[in-house]
C-alpha cells in the first residue's frame, strides 16, 4: 500500500513553478541592477565631461580678460590659458586627460566624444577658439586683427580689434555652454531610458510571476480536483468522521443510501447505520483505534449492506481532522459465509442437521445429562432397500424419498429432539431427557411411520429401516455413543432388517474389531502394506493432466483392501497418522521426482498430498516436508499440500501452529490448497490472510451443481471467490458430463473425478501420462 507521502503526482510541478517564479525575479533583478550600474557609471563620466565642457566657457572669457590685461601691461599669461583651453578641447573631442586649471582640481580622464551633434559642437568650439587665440595674438603683437583668417564661418564686420575678440570669445563661450548642455541632455535621455527599461523589466517580471503564480494555482486546483475525482469516482466508500459528526461522505455512499450528501453529514449519518453497529462506528470515530470494523448501512431499497471499513486515524492531519473510513461492500461475501455456515451444519437435501451439528448438540446434551442425571438416547437409522430405489427409480426419486423420510421422522419426535442425516440413507436422532421405555416406544413409532408406503414416481414404495439405539450418557463421549449406536444398528441389520436393537456390552465384540485395527495398522506400516494411488487433476480448458492427488491405500493381508474412511479416523485418534503422513510425503515426493526425471510431466506439474489437522497442529511438518524434498531433489513448487478449512481457521495454539507451518512451507514455494472447501466453519473474510494457492470445491456442491440451484449458486460463488482472491479453483468429484459442463460454465480452472480417472497406481498413471490425457468421456466404472 502506498504511503500518503509517496503519491504526489503534482507536487514536483508546484515546486518547479515556485522555483520558476524565484528564478524570474532573480533574472529580472540582475538585469535591472546591471543596467543601473552601467547607467550610473555612464552618468558619472558624463558629469566629468559636463564639468570640463562648462569650464571651457569660463576659460574663453578668462582668456579675453587676460589678453586685455596683458595689453594694459599687467603680468598675466593668456598663452597658458589658451593652452589649457586647447588641450581640454582636444580631450573632450578625442579623449585623453583634460588638464588641471586651478591647481586644486585634478586632471580629468575623458573618453572620445560620441554623438554627432556633440562632436560637431566640440569641433566648432575648437575652430572658434582657434580664431579667438589667433585674434588675441594679433592684438598682443599689434598686428591687424582684420587680416586674421576666420575658420568657423563667422563674418565679423566690425573693425575694433577688442570688439572682434570679445565676439569671438562670446561665440566660443556659447558653443561650449551648449556642448555641455548637449551632453547633460544626453545623460537625461539615458536616465529616462533607464527608467523606461526598468519599468518594462519590472512589468515583465511581474507579469511572468503572475503567470507562473496563476499556473501554480491551476496546478493546485487540478491536483485537488484529481484527488477529489479519485475519491468520488472510486467504488470504494469513503467517510470522514469527526468526534461527534460525519464530516464527509463519498459520492458512492450517497448513491448507495440514496440520499443527498447533505442529509448524511453531521448527525444524519448515524440514522442509516444499523443500531447494533452504531457503537462500533462511534468508537472508531472517537478513538480511531481498531484498524478494521464491519458495520451495516441501510441502502435505498431498505436492505442492510455489510460494509468492511479500514479505519485510518487522521485527526492530527490538519487537512483532514477526522477518522477516515475506507469501506467496501462485503454483503455478498457475508451472505455466502452465512449460507456456507448453514450448509456446514445442515443437510442440504432434507434440511435436517448434519453430522457436525449433531455432534455439537450431542456434546451439549451429554453435558446437560450428566448435570441433571437424566438419560438420553442416540438412534442410528439405516434405511433398508434405499439403494434399490435409487438405482431403479433414479437419483431424483431417491432424493424425494429421503425428504419424505425426514418429514416422517420429524413428525414422530418431540420439538426438542434433534434429527440428523449423516449422509446417504443414514439418519441419527438425539432424544434428550428420556427413559429407556420412552425411547423404545418412540423407536417403534418411527418404524411404524416408515412402514407406510410412499408414492414416488408413480410407484408405491415401502421402506424398512434398521435402528440402533444407545442410551447415555455412558462414558460421556459423544463419538463413543454414536459408535455404540452404529454397532447396535449393524446388530439390528444382522438380525433381519426392519427392526431395532438396543446396544448392550455383548455387542462390544465388534468394537474389539475396531480396536484391533490400530494394532494391524502399526504392523501394516512396518510390513509395507500401504501404498499410494494417484488421481489426476485435469485442466478443464486444455484437457491436460496438470497434477495428481496422492491417496493412501491399505492392503491388509487379513482384511483385504481397507477403505481410508475406515482406518484414517483410527490413525488420527491414535497418533499413527504422523508416521503414515510421513510415509505418504516421502513416497509421493519420490514418485513425483521419478516422473519429472523421466520427462513425463511438465515443470508445472504438482503432486498433491493430504495433510491432516493432527500433522499440521504438531510442530515440525515443514521439517518433514523439507527432508522429503531434499532427499528426492524435488523442487518445492512441484509439491502441494491439501489441508482442511477447519485445520486452518482453528483457534488456539494448534491453529496458530498450523498457520505458522503453512506460512513457512508456502514461503519455501510449496503449494497449499484448501480441501473440501465450503464444508467447514467458513470465514471467507479470513481466507485472504492465509497462505494458499488453490481451493478445492467440495464434491457435494459439485455433484449438486447440475440439479440443485442452490448448490449451483454456491459452486459458482466459490469459484468466483477463488478468482477474486487470485486463487485456482478445483472441482472435486466430477462424475458426469453435465457436472463438467456446469463447472466449465462457472469458469472453474481444474477438475478431478471419476469422469476423468479414478485413483490409480503410479504405473497406470504413468501409462496415462505417456499416452496423453484422457478424453472427457464418462468413466464406465462409476460406482
Amino acid at each position, binding site marked *: 500500500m502506498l504511503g500518503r507521502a509517496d503519491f504526489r503526482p503534482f507536487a514536483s510541478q508546484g515546486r518547479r513553478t515556485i522555483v520558476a517564479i524565484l528564478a524570474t525575479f532573480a533574472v529580472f533583478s540582475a538585469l535591472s541592477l546591471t543596467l543601473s550600474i552601467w547607467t550610473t557609471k555612464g552618468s558619472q563620466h558624463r558629469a566629468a565631461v559636463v564639468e570640463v565642457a562648462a569650464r571651457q566657457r569660463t576659460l574663453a572669457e578668462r582668456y579675453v580678460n587676460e589678453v586685455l590685461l596683458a595689453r594694459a601691461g599687467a603680468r598675466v599669461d593668456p598663452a597658458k590659458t589658451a593652452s589649457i583651453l586647447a588641450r581640454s578641447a582636444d580631450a573632450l573631442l578625442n579623449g585623453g586627460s583634460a588638464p588641471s586649471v586651478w591647481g586644486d582640481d585634478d586632471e580629468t580622464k575623458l573618453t572620445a566624444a560620441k554623438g554627432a551633434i556633440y562632436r560637431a559642437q566640440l569641433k566648432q568650439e575648437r575652430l572658434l577658439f582657434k580664431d579667438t587665440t589667433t585674434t588675441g595674438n594679433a592684438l598682443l603683437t599689434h598686428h591687424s586683427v582684420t587680416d586674421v583668417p576666420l575658420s*568657423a564661418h563667422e563674418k565679423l564686420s566690425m573693425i575694433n580689434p577688442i570688439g572682434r575678440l570679445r565676439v569671438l570669445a562670446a561665440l566660443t563661450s556659447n558653443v561650449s555652454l551648449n556642448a555641455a548642455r548637449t551632453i547633460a541632455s544626453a545623460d537625461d535621455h539615458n536616465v529616462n531610458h533607464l527608467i523606461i527599461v526598468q519599468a518594462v523589466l519590472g512589468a515583465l517580471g511581474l507579469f511572468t510571476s503572475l503567470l507562473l503564480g496563476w499556473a501554480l494555482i491551476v496546478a493546485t486546483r487540478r491536483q485537488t480536483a484529481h484527488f477529489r475525482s479519485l475519491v468520488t469516482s472510486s467504488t470504494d466508500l469513503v467517510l470522514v468522521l469527526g468526534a461527534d459528526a460525519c464530516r464527509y461522505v463519498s459520492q458512492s455512499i450517497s448513491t448507495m443510501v440514496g440520499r443527498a450528501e447533505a442529509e448524511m453529514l453531521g448527525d444524519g449519518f448515524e440514522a442509516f447505520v444499523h443500531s447494533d453497529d452504531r457503537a462500533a462506528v462511534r468508537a472508531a470515530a472517537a478513538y480511531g483505534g481498531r484498524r478494521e470494523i464491519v458495520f451495516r448501512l441501510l441502502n435505498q431499497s431498505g436492505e442492510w449492506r455489510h460494509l468492511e471499513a479500514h479505519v485510518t486515524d487522521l485527526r492530527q492531519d490538519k487537512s483532514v481532522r477526522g477518522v477516515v473510513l475506507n469501506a467496501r461492500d462485503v454483503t455478498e461475501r457475508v451472505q455466502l459465509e452465512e449460507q456456507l455456515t448453514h450448509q456446514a451444519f445442515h443437510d442440504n437435501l432434507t434440511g435436517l442437521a448434519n453430522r457436525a451439528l449433531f455432534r455439537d448438540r450431542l456434546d451439549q446434551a451429554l453435558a446437560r445429562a450428566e448435570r441433571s442425571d437424566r438419560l438420553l438416547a442416540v438412534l442410528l437409522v439405516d434405511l433398508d432397500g434405499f439403494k434399490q430405489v435409487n438405482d431403479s427409480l433414479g437419483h431424483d426419486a431417491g432424493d424425494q424419498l429421503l425428504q419424505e423420510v425426514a418429514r416422517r421422522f420429524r413428525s414422530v419426535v418431540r420439538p426438542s429432539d434433534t434429527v440428523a442425516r449423516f449422509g446417504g440413507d443414514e439418519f441419527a436422532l438425539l432424544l434428550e431427557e428420556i427413559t429407556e421405555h420412552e425411547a423404545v416406544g418412540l423407536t417403534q413409532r418411527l418404524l411404524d411411520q416408515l412402514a407406510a408406503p410412499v408414492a414416488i414416481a408413480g410407484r408405491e414404495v415401502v421402506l424398512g429401516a434398521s435402528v440402533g439405539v444407545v442410551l447415555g450418557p455412558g462414558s460421556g463421549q459423544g463419538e463413543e455413543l454414536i459408535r455404540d449406536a452404529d454397532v447396535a444398528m449393524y446388530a439390528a441389520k444382522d438380525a433381519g432388517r426392519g427392526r431395532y436393537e438396543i446396544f448392550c456390552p455383548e455387542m462390544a465384540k465388534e468394537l474389539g474389531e475396531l480396536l484391533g485395527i490400530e494394532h494391524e495398522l502399526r504392523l501394516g506400516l512396518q510390513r509395507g502394506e500401504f501404498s499410494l494411488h494417484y488421481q489426476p487433476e485435469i485442466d478443464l480448458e486444455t484437457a491436460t493432466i496438470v497434477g495428481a492427488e496422492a491417496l493412501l491405500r491399505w492392503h491388509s493381508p487379513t482384511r483385504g483392501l481397507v477403505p481410508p474412511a475406515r482406518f484414517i479416523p483410527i490413525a488420527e485418534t491414535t497418533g499413527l497418522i504422523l508416521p503414515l503422513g510421513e510415509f505418504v510425503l516421502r513416497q509421493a515426493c519420490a514418485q513425483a521426482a521419478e516422473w519429472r526425471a523421466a520427462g513425463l510431466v511438465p515443470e508445472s506439474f504438482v503432486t498433491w498430498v493430504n495433510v491432516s489437522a493432527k500433522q499440521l497442529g504438531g510442530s515440525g511438518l515443514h521439517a518433514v516436508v523439507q527432508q522429503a524434498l531434499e532427499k528426492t531433489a524435488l523442487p518445492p513448487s512441484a509439491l502441494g499440500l491439501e489441508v482442511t478449512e477447519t485445520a486452518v481457521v482453528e483457534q488456539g495454539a494448534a491453529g496458530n501452529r498450523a498457520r505458522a507451518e503453512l506460512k513457512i512451507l508456502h514461503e519455501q514455494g510449496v503449494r497449499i490448497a484448501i480441501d473440501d472447501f465450503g464444508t467447514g466453519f467458513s470465514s471467507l473474510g479470513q481466507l485472504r490472510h492465509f497462505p494458499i494457492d488453490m481451493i478445492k470445491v467440495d464434491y457435494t456442491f459439485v455433484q449438486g451443481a447440475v440439479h440443485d440451484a442452490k448448490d449451483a449458486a454456491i459452486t459458482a460463488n466459490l469459484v468466483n471467490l477463488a478468482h477474486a482472491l487470485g486463487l485456482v479453483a478445483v472441482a472435486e468429484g466430477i462424475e458426469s458430463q453435465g457436472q463438467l459442463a456446469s463447472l466449465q460454465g462457472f469458469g472453474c480452472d481444474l477438475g478431478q473425478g471419476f469422469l476423468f480417472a479414478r485413483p490409480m497406481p503410479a504405473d497406470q498413471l504413468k501409462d496415462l501420462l505417456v499416452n496423453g490425457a484422457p478424453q472427457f468421456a464418462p468413466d464406465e466404472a462409476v460406482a
Partner: protein
Amino acid sequence: MTDAMRQLSLRLGRLSVVVLSVLVAAACSASGRIAGAGGTLVRVNERDFRLTVTPNHVRAGDVLLAVRNHGPDTHELIIVRSGSRLPLRLDGLTVDERALSAVTAASLDGAGPGSVGQVRVHLAHGRYELFCNMAGHFMAGMHGELVVD
C-alpha cells in the same frame, strides 16, 4: 523619480510638437502656401553663423515661419520690423531687444541643432530683419531680411 517622470513627459510632449512641425512643414513645402490656413510659408535656415530666408519677398498677411537649425550651435530667431540699423546693447555682443519690443513681430526661443520650429505671424507691409541674438551671433553674421509688399 517624479522629477524624472515629469521630464520624460515634457520631452515626449516636445517630441510630438517637433514631429507635428515636420509633418506640417513637409505638407506645405510643395506649394509655399499653407493648406487650409491661408498664409505664406517662409523657410528660415540657421547655421553657424548664417541665416537665410526663402523667399525673402512675400505679400502682406499671414506668414508661417518654418525655422530649421542646422547647428552645430543653438540658435534662436527674432523678427523685427526695422528699416534701419539695429541698436546694440552696451556689451557690444547682442542686439537690444527691449529697445525693439515695439517692432518685434515674433520670436522663437533658442533650440538645439536639428530642431525645427515654426511661428505664425501677421506681417504688414515693410522691411523685416530676422536674426539670432545668442551672444555674438548677430555680430558674427546671423541675420537676414524679409521684405513684405
